[in-house]
């Protein structure tokens, strides 16, 4: 077992980065009641990766312009712009806009992958293939995840204020739309690098399941963040060990582990 853990140390470390930062960001998504923004952004990011694969297989190489991370980030940022306007437009309900972004981006990604010569992206839409994470991917995750974490530790009170009471924040001089955009962009940055290694399902799982555990166990906001990150990290380690021991797909096993922790949190709350 120990040899296997050492063998997959990059994968475990990289997934723990996604777990810790994704679980923290997910608390905002949960409390702002925009959980499916995370799902839509993850799907948009996957469409960007699929486009990069399609262009590569078609022989289109424009240097940095066809870089998979840049295209994934571009799709996600465009998605942030599209979804962030949901409070300011009428005509299409906000949840319908999310659903539209999710299914169209998913369909586009599937079509692009189907027309590309590479097969390594087929896992993108399900569990991803975290066991194949490279040292370069880990370094990228650590860099982006660390930056997002530092931003959130520094600006937590600002993000909380504009999320909880945007009107009051605006009366006190906060540029609410800019702060909200920064919040979503930070999520977009993490999702972009996470999707390439962990896939859509696992990345979205981190944005939803640990924050549910956090909300059930934390009495104060700080506690909710702490419990959410703890649940994300614990669920990842348990899921990794279970997947190796039982020879199961890692991403799906981690998600089930995160779900089981949410159930335990629910039981703990009812006992308390």
């Amino acid at each position: 077992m120990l040899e296997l853990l050492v063998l997959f140390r990059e994968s475990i470390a990289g997934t723990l980065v996604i777990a810790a930062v994704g679980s923290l960001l997910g608390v905002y998504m949960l409390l702002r009641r925009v959980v499916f923004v995370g799902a839509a952004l993850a799907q948009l990011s996957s469409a960007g990766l699929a486009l990069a694969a399609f262009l590569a297989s078609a022989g289109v190489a424009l240097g940095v312009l066809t870089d998979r991370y840049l295209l994934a980030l571009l799709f996600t940022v465009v998605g942030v712009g599209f979804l962030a306007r949901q409070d300011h437009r009428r005509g299409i309900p906000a949840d319908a806009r999310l659903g539209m972004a999710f299914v169209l981006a998913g369909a586009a990604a599937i079509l692009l992958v189907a027309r590309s010569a590479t097969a390594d992206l087929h896992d993108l839409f399900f569990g991803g293939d975290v066991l194949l994470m490279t040292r370069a991917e880990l370094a990228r995750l650590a860099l982006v995840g660390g930056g997002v974490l530092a931003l959130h530790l520094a600006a937590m009170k600002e993000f909380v204020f504009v999320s909880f009471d945007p009107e009051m924040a605006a009366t006190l001089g906060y540029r609410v739309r800019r702060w909200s955009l920064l919040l979503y962009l930070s999520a977009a940055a993490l999702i972009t690098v996470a999707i390439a290694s962990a896939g859509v399902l696992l990345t979205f799982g981190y944005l939803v399941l640990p924050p549910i555990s956090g909300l059930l166990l934390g009495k104060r906001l700080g506690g909710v963040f702490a419990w959410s990150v703890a649940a994300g990290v614990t669920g990842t380690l348990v899921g990794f060990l279970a997947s190796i021991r039982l020879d199961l797909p890692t991403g799906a096993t981690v998600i089930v582990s995160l779900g089981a922790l949410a159930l335990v949190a629910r039981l703990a709350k009812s006992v308390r």
Partner: protein
Amino acid sequence: MAFGRHGVFEAVSFGLARGEMLGLVGPNGGGKTTLIRALLGVIRPTSGRIVHHDPALTMGYVPQRETLDPVWPLTAGEVVLMARYPRAGYFHRPGAEDRASARRALAEVGIEELHDRAYGNLSGGQKQRVLLARALATEPGALVLDEPTFGMDLAASTSMLALVRRLNRERGITVLIASHLLEEVVNLVERVGFVLDGSVQVGTVAEMVVPERLTALYGVPVAVDVVNGHRAIHARGLEG
């Protein structure tokens, strides 16, 4: 002055003297909240402009409490402390003085003991007091209250309005209060503004709260009885 889908106001001009209480009343959907949000700078006009003749006047805002989601695990003290965030500055935590100010504000509205209670678990009246405390923690020259007694029972709404009146009289805080509860407002303030279809008409309560004006405002016959200085307002036609 237009606010996109929020509506359009004709040239609106009214003064608010230091220390006075002004009420904004009118039917639901008449534009009271839009006008208040525009005055506070929450929304900006898509055409036209808003001119404050006393830009130094700080306004403490008490929003409708239904706009705040109780799912947030924040204590009453943490909600009030938000008023001090601009003083702390971006990326800095509020200091001891800010925390003391939040406690003082809670004490001023009579609920210091709720400091560590979850905001989402408070009653409607308690939540409204927390929001009033938060507005006071901004050390405002004027308080702007949007439907401060909406959904409260008689005891809670009476207590809330008495508190607002006390703050006005004892601390000289200017008060602008918007409500669809006409009778409640006109018995609290000295002047009143009728908000309807993009216009605002302001005058003293004695000038404005007369059957002819109220009938025109609400589109139904309205009677006004004055008993011991208290104005009782009835929509006629319900007698039988």
